[in-house]
């Protein structure tokens, strides 16, 4: 690797530099940022074969790569195509890991119902959350966009979901998160299901005010937040990105 330690750290701050697997993990991060599906898939497969812990590949390779892509979008360095292509590359790696993670857990970890709220059609962030949750072994029911409170609640009931996750990108539709949580309360389901909210305009304060159970700024934090909400222990190669999620 030609990169100096310093430049490596400044771009990809979450790497354990001193370990044997650091170089391939770094390459994996880079491949996600560079939207290289083939390399992501091959590197992931190779590391699995070499016996690298699955959650280490995930939390120190794939996820920091995605986080970097998402950060570049926030700064205006990446546009929608780059972001979507990085998500797609991430999925190639997660597709390798998912069956193995599920095997290890014997079954899906938990069921998550997710959707973008009423009158809102933005779904790039939500779809990324889905990719990440599924890649972490969760079973996800995607209700799509423009989802009414009634539809959310029906799906929670029907699927006996433990988590209800909502995304909103319009400040003009954010209040539908609140209405959905109120509906949940009224239907008596609030005790059975935890709510998780996200989307660019959603703040931790807003999330708290509307009575959500959890909030993440980044999709990459969603899996560890869901585990936290359900009291599931974090796995090896623990995710270092908890600082941007809040249990409310």
């Amino acid at each position: 690797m030609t990169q100096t330690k310093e430049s490596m750290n400044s771009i990809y701050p979450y790497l354990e530099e001193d370990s044997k697997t650091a170089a391939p993990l770094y390459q994996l991060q880079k491949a996600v940022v560079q939207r290289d599906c083939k390399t992501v898939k091959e590197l992931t497969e190779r590391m699995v074969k070499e016996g690298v812990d699955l959650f280490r590949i995930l939390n120190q390779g794939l996820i920091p790569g995605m986080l970097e892509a998402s950060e570049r979008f926030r700064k205006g360095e990446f546009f929608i195509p780059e972001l979507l292509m990085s998500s797609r590359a991430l999925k190639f790696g997660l597709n390798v890991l998912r069956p193995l993670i599920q095997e290890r857990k014997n079954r899906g970890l938990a069921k998550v119902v997710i959707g973008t709220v009423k009158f809102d059609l933005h779904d790039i962030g939500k779809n990324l959350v889905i990719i990440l949750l599924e890649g972490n072994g969760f079973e996800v029911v995607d209700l799509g966009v423009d989802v009414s409170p009634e539809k959310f609640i029906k799906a929670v009931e029907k699927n006996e979901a433990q988590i209800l996750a909502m995304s909103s990108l319009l400040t003009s539709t954010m209040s539908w998160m609140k209405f959905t949580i109120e509906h949940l309360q009224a239907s008596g389901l609030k005790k059975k299901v935890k709510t998780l909210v996200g989307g660019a305009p959603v703040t931790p304060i807003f999330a708290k005010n509307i009575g959500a159970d959890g909030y993440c700024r980044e999709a990459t934090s969603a899996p560890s937040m869901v585990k936290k909400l359900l009291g599931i222990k974090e796995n090896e190669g623990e995710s270092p990105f908890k600082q941007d999620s809040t249990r409310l």
Partner: protein
Amino acid sequence: MRENSTERRSGKKVLVLACSVMEKEIRQFQNGRLEFKFFDYGLHRTPENMAQAIQLEIDKASDEDYEGIILGYGLCSNGIVGITSKKLRLIIPRIHDCISLFLGSVESYQKQSKEFPGTYYLTPGWIDKGQTPVSKFKSYAQAYGEETARWVLHEEMKHYTRIVFIDTGVYPREPYRAIARENAEFLGISYEELQGSPNLFKKLLHGPWGKEFLIIERNQSVRQESFLDL
């Protein structure tokens, strides 16, 4: 601004800081007292950079002798949250985004989004900035090839069912209408036209500033809560 409008002829100037996507719609209300500064429309993609850019201009303006500052921005995904003016009062339309301004009121935008959530709005300003599905497709294809471009555009637009062209009355209608229609055809979705209204622009730039506006006093910050109806 002591008075509730910018109509008074004498006295100091009022600084207008606005998004370049509405430059023409705003300039038509020059009444001799306004001074304009337009920002790159691209800031709408990066709300976290937006406040910084606007704050910088507000700070610069504090050293000059303005009566006050008018913002040609909505809440824009919290892009104006945290903005503070130490010396001058800020007038801000109480809207979530620019579509309310183009349509002339919050109510008409609300009505549209409730009846047809799957609407993608085009105005001549947005068309000129290349922010149409057709132009995006072309630039994606140039960067990544047609196949990827098609996939990206599909991911972006797959839920939309209608293109609405808003005629804001300050551009020649025919060429823009043709482009808007071409976009609907390109996506295979329905096409409609709405007559824009200058009402909200006019009130923003000339006053009087009633409940459709937020008046942020000196040293106070713009807050998200002020825009939400919870």
